[in-house]
């Protein structure tokens, strides 16, 4: 199970669609991270729709459709680091969907939640035959910073044996731009 390239370009990413939830994302959590992403895009001076370049193992352009955040939302997400991290989860989840996988499970880990990708009709036991989604967010950086985050994520998951397949997505909100790398395809 790995990513498959979308047929059409640019791919459409509607943040509000996450509010209906996904197999592994409850609607409230989906709405919340979509709001975080909109706060990040708004803070970087973008307006909807926003064009985003996706590069890495797959090169594609995307159009992000989003609703400007309310003042209340901006205040709630005023911790930049927290908002960037959660906004990146949202963008990453919606990008990988375009490539045929969806967040189907979550688990707790030291730095928050761990997301696991699978096909929409995943039926197996918990975490069986799934792919980990490793996400990192940069509020305002450059390609060098994105590359450094990707390298960091690869190193975190790089081990000599028994590796789990993973998709690494680093989202930068200034461009915006995203890099997606697949490691250890099934």
């Amino acid at each position, binding site marked *: 199970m790995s990513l498959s390239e979308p047929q059409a370009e640019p791919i459409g990413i509607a943040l509000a669609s996450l509010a209906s939830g996904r197999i592994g994302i409850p609607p409230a959590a989906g709405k919340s991270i979509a709001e975080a992403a909109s706060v990040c895009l708004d803070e970087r001076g973008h307006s909807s729709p926003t064009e985003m370049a996706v590069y890495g193992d797959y090169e594609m352009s995307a159009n992000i459709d989003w609703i400007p955040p309310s003042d209340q939302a901006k205040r709630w997400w005023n911790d930049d680091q927290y908002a960037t991290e959660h906004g990146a989860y949202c963008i990453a989840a919606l990008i990988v969907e375009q490539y045929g996988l969806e967040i189907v499970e979550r688990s*707790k880990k030291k730095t928050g*939640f761990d997301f696991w990708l699978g096909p929409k009709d995943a039926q197996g036991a*918990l975490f069986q035959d799934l792919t980990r989604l490793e996400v990192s967010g940069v509020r305002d950086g450059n390609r060098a910073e994105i590359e450094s985050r990707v390298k960091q994520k690869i190193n975190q998951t790089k081990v000599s044996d028994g590796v789990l397949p993973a998709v690494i997505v680093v989202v930068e909100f200034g461009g915006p731009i995203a890099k997606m790398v697949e490691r250890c395809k099934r």
Partner: protein
Amino acid sequence: MQKVNELHHKAMALADLAEDAKRAGRTDEYIELTREALRHESEAAWMIAGELSLEPSRSVLFRSAATLAIESGDIRVAEQLIAAALAGNPPSEIAEELRDLLEDVYFHRHLKVRGVTLGHGDFQMTLEGKAVGFGIARSEVFVQRVKDFETLLYRTAERRLGREFREAGRRKKGLAQSLELYISVPRAASFAVTLKLGKNTQLQLPGMDDFSADTMTALLDGITMINDGNLVALKEAIPDESYRNNFIGLVERLSPDGNDIRTVGFTAGSDQEERIVALSTPKKELRARMRKVTQKPKHETEAVPVEIQGILLEADAKRQKEGIIEVVDSTGTAHKIAVPRGMMSDIVKPMFEEDVVVVGIRRGDRLDLQSIDLAESERGTD
């Protein structure tokens, strides 16, 4: 397996609610919900504990439960869950994450004071990281932090006494004597010492029984606010900008580098009322977060972030509102940088004539300091 799925999904839903409560500052609710999530997640994990080949399900569930146990303060439970996970055949990257969690468990265990009675106003400082062994630590990482902590303590005391921020000059003799800091023999934990405050008999504020202990409480409150990223609360607690800049700068210096020192922990209070504060956000990350909050809006186009490395040659704290430093880079160019009040004496001056990295904001000809640190070459590996 259906029952395992149900328990896990319930646990994650509760963890979401716990996260919301935490962000809203409802700490008791956060702990309660996290414990409830732990109950579900650990039940799910133990249900498949005997199925050693069911990986990564088995180890991921145990890791997830152990994380919830650490978050809810059930350290012994976390230790048991991690041990159970590692006793199976976890995929190597999950095993690594479990070992990281185990280090957290050990650090929390070391923060629990054993065999030592902390008096009112005493506290324990514990370091953990690569530069720390069992009962031994590289001197510079320890000594610098004790000094910075002592400075933070006196600054907090002066602020609580309503004194104007002292940009230069020594601290008043009476205060220095009454808040004298004593250090115990180090203990073999990660690396732990008890720091004891001299009991103050003269300095009393109305309604406060023990000035030293209350100063310590105010200090730990401030560190907790920075730790939580709650700068609104910090601004309320320390309204004076000089004191606030100074506090943030010193907490940044105390913070771990993320490698040699990964966590700096403080334990204060008695058995009945123990308080643990752990600084675990790496210094660079903490600085970036502080900068974001304190800098002007990003739409201010003329404000350009600047990073300069060079020798700090000149420090001038004579001006009332700000000091000026000069950093000469490798090309010989001298950069004049304005230092906000509160940062010169304790943060900048100790680095005089050292190779430093300065981060600032340039607006036209003016360059304002945001943070300063020793360059890697000057710092050894910390």
